């Protein structure tokens, strides 16, 4: 072994990959030979031996604050401007938005990127194509933010979040391979990020929703429970409640409504309705659905009555229809078939007005189930024929039309059964999540 020991400075440069081959060799040979001086230098890479910062934290904070003060003022200003910037482009076509945003520096901010992401979530059910366009625009903005405005790790956090939004929009559009690819990107950027558990929880929540849509329930539960633990660790009870709602919906989807009820009741205890009123309403609505599933009609009706007062008749028309739909199901379960049929028919007609063919078909099939049970076969036949015509005119997807044709033909032969209707109903419900599903009648 050479007698010349590496200095501390040389050792630091060794760890930084800055030495020549001979210098690197010297260091490693010393370490392998058990050189005590070199071991002392290596010990600096473990948390045991160096003077620490405890006493200096207050001075540290003051010095750092002097540097960050201007950044804080700018961050507040950018957040205030971001909403106005969003409003200025929201009604433009995606192509025009892209041109405006990419070519103007004032849009290249963290706050505006976050605004686009949030808007993508708001638009996800009303217009999932636009939600995807907004998320993709957010990705462009994230790439245009000046490097001086955020560290590489923080920008990685931002990109992880954007890719999660892209995955979510693709999921809602039924593009599962695209959603998987976007989720993989999100995870890659997360690995390069700050390690903020809030970001990981966000990606896990969206992964949970994707796995639920793919009917990979065990994986969905794993992802969602981990997200819940992360929110709990951070101390964000409301976010914990939000993910509990997602988990509850998954449980209901996979046929475990009693677990769904427990989860939703936990969630309602955590959700801050003032912070997100829609989430609280959504949780109660799902609770009513689950209660109806387990044969608790009175309790379900109580929640339904309370929810009716909470929804806005103009903005929440579809949600109110779903509520009426649920109420009709509950009334049917209680034996009040006439009221149930009346309610379902009203819902069916309103879905026709809204040009939602799958919902029209689903409601009609539920009506047909009741009619068959009551021996109203002529009425069921008329309804089946009418539904085929309406679905065709509203442009329902081909596989769903094939399924409805089976119903129409069975009704014409007076061979329509509850079992057959149930099979087709199940197919149509699954095709909502997966438009590529094939009907095998």
């Amino acid at each position, binding site marked *: 072994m050479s007698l010349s020991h590496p200095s501390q400075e040389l050792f630091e440069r060794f760890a930084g990959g800055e030495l020549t081959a001979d210098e690197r060799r010297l260091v490693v040979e010393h370490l392998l030979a058990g050189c005590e001086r070199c071991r002392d230098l290596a010990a600096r890479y473990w948390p045991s031996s160096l003077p620490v*910062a405890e*006493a200096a934290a207050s001075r540290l904070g003051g010095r750092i604050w002097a540097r960050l003060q201007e950044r804080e003022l700018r961050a*507040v200003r950018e957040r205030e401007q971001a909403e106005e910037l969003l409003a200025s482009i929201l009604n433009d076509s995606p192509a025009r938005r892209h041109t405006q945003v990419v070519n103007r520096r004032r849009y290249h901010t963290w706050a505006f990127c976050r605004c686009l992401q949030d808007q993508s979530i708001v638009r996800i059910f009303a217009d999932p194509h636009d939600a995807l366009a907004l998320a993709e625009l957010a990705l462009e903005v994230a790439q245009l933010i000046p490097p001086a405005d955020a560290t590489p790790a923080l920008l990685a956090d931002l990109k992880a979040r954007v890719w999660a939004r892209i995955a979510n929009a693709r999921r809602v559009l039924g593009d599962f391979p695209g959603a998987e690819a976007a989720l993989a990107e999100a995870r890659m950027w997360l690995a390069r990020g700050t390690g903020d558990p809030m970001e990981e929880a966000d990606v896990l929540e969206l992964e949970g929703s994707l796995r639920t849509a793919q009917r990979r329930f065990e994986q969905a539960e794993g992802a969602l429970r981990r997200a819940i633990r992360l929110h709990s660790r951070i101390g964000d009870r409301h976010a914990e409640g939000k993910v509990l709602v997602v988990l509850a919906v998954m449980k209901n989807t996979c046929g475990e409504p009693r677990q769904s009820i427990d989860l939703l009741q936990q969630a309602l205890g955590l959700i801050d309705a003032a912070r997100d009123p829609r989430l609280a309403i959504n949780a109660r609505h799902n609770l009513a659905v689950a209660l109806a599933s387990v044969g608790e009609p009175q309790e379900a009706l109580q929640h339904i009555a309370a929810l009716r007062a909470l929804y806005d008749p103009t903005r929440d028309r579809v949600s109110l229809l779903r509520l009426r739909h649920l109420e009709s199901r509950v009334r049917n379960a209680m034996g009040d078939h006439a009221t149930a049929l009346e309610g379902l028919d009203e819902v069916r007609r309103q879905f026709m007005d809204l040009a939602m063919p799958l919902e029209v078909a689903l409601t009609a099939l539920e009506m047909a189930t009741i009619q068959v049970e009551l021996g109203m076969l002529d009425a069921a036949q008329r309804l089946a024929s009418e539904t085929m015509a309406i679905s065709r005119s509203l442009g329902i997807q081909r596989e769903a039309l094939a399924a409805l044709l089976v119903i129409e033909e069975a009704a014409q032969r007076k061979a329509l059964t509850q079992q057959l209707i149930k099979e087709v109903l199940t197919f149509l419900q699954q095709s909502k999540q997966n438009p590529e599903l094939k009907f095998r009648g």
Partner: protein
Amino acid sequence: MTVHGAPAAAGSVELLLGRLAPEIGEVFASFKIPYQDSEDLLQEALLALLLKRDRIQEPASWLLGALRTQCLIYWRRRRRRLYEAIDATLLEMAADPVPADDERTNWRCDLSHAISHLSDRCKSILRLRYGLGYEGDEVAERLGYRASSIRKVTLRCLSALTHRITGSPPAREVRA
């Protein structure tokens, strides 16, 4: 519209920092962060707080949590730089075509001795890596690992080897 509440007023983070100074000091002390590096870590955590402020409901606990995460990552990255530097150098030395002389074979004996104290799995991996010049996917195939997992397993073995040759305790995350 923001989904999660109104943005914070300017100056609120400065007040928070003043209030949390003792706890911040405790975090650095418990993770034994060297003084000269603590400033960068605190600055990164504060910048994150500024930028993510509208999503953070409990800024005090968030900031302390973010700082703890920064401290964990600090030590993890620092150690990883050392493992990777040692590994890269050993690979160069192992590939050296210069005929062995007494001085040159010493390091091979020292390395072999160090590896002999590791787990069977690490012995296998590192002997293939340094003794036979196997790359990651070749090691994976030889030992029956998935290509996607061999990198992580190799890193753990490099960590174990580094601990062995530096005489330091096994890597265990310091938790506050």
